[in-house]
């Protein structure tokens, strides 16, 4: 029984944590909040040099051929370190999609520069204020020319490439589109978490290349979302623990009425509840990491369980962290709001818990008999 990360994986964690503490964290997030949209570019290149972008990519495409577990470790640390870069979109969603559905030629052409950080890639699914379902996607591809409007697109204003989900008769199809080519207009849109910028990307006959078979787009997306849910959950869980740590530090240091506020049960019990939520999320993340790394049949259920738990834990830890900080927590200068913004942004990326709870129960209903 070894339900834990290996010593090598823990080494990767240590490396990631110190790197992010030195180069990222609140100071970098604040630069992006202050409108410096290029502030994360250097970090992204450094991450690429460290091999993070290619963690899950086979060596033949320039990657490191590590498994899902290493990605999980990184995701947790990205959450803890408030990483602002487009690494999440690339490594959780877009690169796995390319690996899963791209042609051999596409993989050879794009993966090496992506892994090296020379190109960046995002995924463009949503079309405005409805959750993304076949009914709500109208972007069309005719003779590989893409027309339609996608928003929000994470990092859409700065990425070089996007995997664009287009409608067709059947199940939708993905197209790879170069975003700095003619026929693409993009604009930044104000985001709740400006350290994770969002864009509106309009396609007007932009040149695209089909990725995957025609009509398998929605099926691919569901598969990639299950995969990404595990990584988002790790990132959320890492963020939850960071917010909890911040709250505990403050509760020990801040005094009111002659004693540390952490000695009052009103604060102490709240922190205990935050710890319990963060711990359950962590344990569910570990199980999902196992399912991801072994491509187990349990993955859809395990991913949804981790995702739902981690969303709740981060929401709770981020908001109660402010509450414990009192008035100071409501000021721009104190870092509480960075977690609070990030908690919400991660909570709705790839769909809110309204969607994931439903996926969880559907997975339970289709469990094989013996598992029940």
């Amino acid at each position, binding site marked *: 029984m070894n339900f834990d990360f290996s010593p090598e994986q823990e080494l990767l964690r240590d490396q990631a944590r110190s790197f992010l503490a030195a180069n990222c964290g609140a100071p970098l997030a604040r630069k992006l909040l202050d409108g410096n949209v290029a502030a994360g570019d250097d970090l992204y290149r450094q991450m690429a040099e460290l091999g993070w972008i290619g963690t899950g990519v086979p060596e033949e495409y320039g990657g490191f051929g590590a498994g899902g577990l290493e990605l999980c470790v990184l995701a947790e640390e990205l959450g803890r370190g408030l990483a602002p870069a487009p690494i999440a979109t690339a490594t959780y969603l877009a690169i796995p999609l390319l690996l899963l559905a791209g042609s051999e030629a596409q993989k050879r052409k794009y993966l090496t520069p992506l892994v090296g950080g020379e190109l960046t890639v995002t995924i463009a*699914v*949503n079309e*405005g*204020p*409805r*959750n*993304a*379902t076949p*009914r*709500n996607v109208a972007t069309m591809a005719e003779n590989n020319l893409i027309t339609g409007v996608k*928003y*929000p697109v994470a990092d859409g204003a700065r990425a070089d490439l996007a995997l664009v989900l287009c409608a067709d008769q059947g199940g939708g199809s993905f197209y790879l589109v170069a975003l700095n080519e003619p026929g693409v207009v993009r604009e930044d*849109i*104000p*985001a*709740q978490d400006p350290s*994770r910028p*969002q864009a*509106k990307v309009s396609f007007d006959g932009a040149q695209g290349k089909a990725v995957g078979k025609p009509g398998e787009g929605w099926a691919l997306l569901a598969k990639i979302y299950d995969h990404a849910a595990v990584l988002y959950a790790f990132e959320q869980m890492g963020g939850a623990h960071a917010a909890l740590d*911040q709250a505990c530090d*403050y509760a*020990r*240091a*801040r*005094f*009111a*009425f*002659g*004693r540390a506020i952490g000695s009052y049960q*009103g*604060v102490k019990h709240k922190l205990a509840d935050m710890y319990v939520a963060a711990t359950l999320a962590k344990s569910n993340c570990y199980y999902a990491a196992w399912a991801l790394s072994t491509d187990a049949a349990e993955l859809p259920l395990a991913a949804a369980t981790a995702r739902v738990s981690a969303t709740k834990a981060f*929401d709770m830890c981020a*908001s109660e962290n*402010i*509450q414990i*900080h*009192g*008035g*100071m*927590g*409501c*000021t*721009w*200068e*104190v*870092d509480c*709001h960075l977690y*609070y913004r990030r908690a*919400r*942004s991660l*909570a*709705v*990326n790839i*769909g*809110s*818990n*309204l*969607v994931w*709870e*439903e996926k969880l129960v559907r997975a339970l209903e289709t469990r094989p008999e013996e598992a029940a």
Partner: protein
Amino acid sequence: MDFSDTTEEAAFRMEARAWLDANATPKAHPNQTWASVLEDKTRDNIVRLCKEFQSRRHADGWACLHWPKEYGGRGCTAIERVIYGQEESRYIVPRGVVEIGQGMAGPILMKYATADQKARYLPPMATGEEIWCQIFSEASAGSDLAGLRMAATKDGDADDADWILDGEKIWTSGAHYSDFGITIARSDGAVAKHKGLTFFFIDMKSPGISIAPIRQISGSSHFNSVRFDNVRVPDAQRLGAVGEGWKVALATLMNERVSVGEAPGPDFEQIFALAQTVELNDRPAIENQMVRSKLAHWYCETAGLKNTRMRSVSALSRGETPGPENSITKLVSATKAQDIARFGADLMDQCAVITDPDLVLGDGRFQQSYMQSPAMRIAGGTDEILRNIIAEHVLKLPSEPRADKGLAFSEIPTGNVAGETGP
């Protein structure tokens, strides 16, 4: 059990309505705010419009309802204030500049100032000519307000020697445009916490006062920090005896608590409307029973608060003192606002990450409320302090043993005073 006014109340209501009709525009819908119709949203313009409106109010006898007539008020009963408030809530009315002075500073002056001071300061406060602010909190003295540290030192031994104020205050609304302020400082650190405080009013143009906006997590700045560097205050501007400042402050805090209403932000009607608008898994979200169950819960809370206020108004109408309704209202509505904001975002799904009012459902108010509601759970008494108040004042549960009891202020453990240096 009925909801009709007494004859006197009905007459007052008609009178108020008539004045409002003549002097203000009715709201287009119940949630319409003054800010939303204001074209020039600069602070100067807001202050100007508020002063103008207050001046009209005063000219027609509708200023400072609760003040005695001699100081420019109307001398209303509590139920009359409620009735006026009910009527006014249906109109668009400039708000947010004169209230703190009239609600907090005015009553204190009436109680503690000299006759000359009252004659000098109260009338222009009533007309809106002069604006007052309240300068109480400090970074290290939030819930434990009496733990404040701004120093008040006598400049010399004379009984009426001036005071020198040194320290930093935060969470002051309107410091920039105020003419005067009320404040409290520590005049003696060697006695118990509550015993060493003294209360003053100050001229905001006094040398040594510097004001800086505090940026909140929402990005906006509704409050200021106010630094006092060697600020000289005549002893005549002391209100109450030396060392009795806490008693004076308590009276204003009571006034503040009475005036706290329901937390702003998308309310039940707005989340109900959103659920009717948005889709969830290709069906209208309103058909989802989980959504329905949440709506039922928030409706029960919303109706419960409204009906609790009606019971409270009913008690006022009988001349009784209101109960803990304001603590309940703030405790329930602040968390409700945060939960509704979060659930609204969940309903909007991936699109909830953006805040552009033109691209996101609900005009971005859910996203805005998400950033504003944490402060609602803290300002004017944290959730935890409100629970203490309900438990101790209403349910008569014993208070906690006090770690600072019997200690001189200077001996009270403060940890590293995290609030002053950042966490």
